[in-house]
């Protein structure tokens, strides 16, 4: 069953916390992966791979550069579930 944006955000936050050690309360839709969360491109790919697995979606490598914020990723994943 497709998850809504709130549920995807919760799941993605778990992945980000696990990969980076960032506190869950610091992860929010408007946060930039690079500028706010200081996530480098390799950690970003780890998060992407784990999100693909968790939400059973495909996030093409070319698409990752468009996922600037946590909200961008949540939005992409939510739509990709359909």
């Amino acid at each position, binding site marked *: 069953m497709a998850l809504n944006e709130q549920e995807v955000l919760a799941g993605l936050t778990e992945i980000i916390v696990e990969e980076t050690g960032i506190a869950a309360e610091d992860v929010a839709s408007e946060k930039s992966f690079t500028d706010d969360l200081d996530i*480098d*491109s*390799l950690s*970003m*790919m*780890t998060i*992407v*791979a784990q999100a693909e697995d968790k939400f059973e979606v495909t996030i093409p*490598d070319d698409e*990752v550069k468009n996922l600037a914020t946590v909200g961008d990723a949540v939005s992409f994943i939510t739509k990709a579930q359909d």
Partner: protein
Amino acid sequence: MTTTLQQASCTQYSRVLGIGGVRGEHVVPNADIVEAINSSDEWIQQRTGIISRMRSGPDVNVLDLAEGAARAAIAHAGIEASQIDTVILSTVTYFRQTPAGATQIADRIGATPAAAYDISAACAGYTYGIAQADALVRAGAARCVLVIGAEKMSDFIDPTDRSISFLLGDGAGAAIVGPSDFPGIGPTIWGSDGSRAETIGQTEDWQQAIRSGQWPTLRQEGPAVFKWASFQMAPIAKQAMAAAGVTADQIQAFVPHQANMRIIDQLIKQLKLPDGIAVGRDIAETGNTSAASIPLAIERLYREGQVSSGDLALQIGFGAGLAYGAQVIVLP
């Protein structure tokens, strides 16, 4: 049909009899290369785990490195070079398209008239070579195979490139494969995905390079390669263990291609390898030496006393192609 042909008799088992390697003779610390890529020692270490890499000078070519590794593997195996009847050289940094460099290695070490040929599978090349040697020995086509992965990567670097050049080192690693009384090389799980050929490779082909006067160098899409290697290679490694009939808690060493320490760490996590297993981490001081990296990492594990004869090692190579190969071997 009036005459029945004879065919070679098969041998049931093969194994690796010896492993050796040599590295470029110069230590190149991060400090020596950071200015050209506007970076820092800290960034390189955090991003790759590399502290320094070993590179050769202009007087050393890839065949010199290959010869050194071959001699080390022969010594480790305790055989005579004249016993070698097949030489397989995996390299992507030998400048002559023909004749094959392997023929010269056979000549230099005294293995003539061994069958000798080169293969091109980049960072998967050593595991491809082991796969071929295993098959040749068991099929009865060869009795004693010298497999070499040799690269002088520094001939293909662009000092200003932030994608791959700063990772690269020079070196060669080699193994001797022969018949065995017991199963010594598990089935190889190997493959490729040419649809992703542009992900890692030479910037332009030789014809374009000659026309443009631009020396070709190497480039990669780092994050895409990281994701592929970290997450798509773990299932391949698992398949290699399953095919060999072993589980992660039964192997003593994990020796992946030395591409990036963070890939190594991610693979360990994905494979759920037990704590205390010996892990090839030669990249920290040697850099990424493509086809040479797995045998060089094994050589270091021996030297540091982390592995011994009879241990089971899971090895996996992956890189340009995108090509990959994995197998479990019994260490000599």
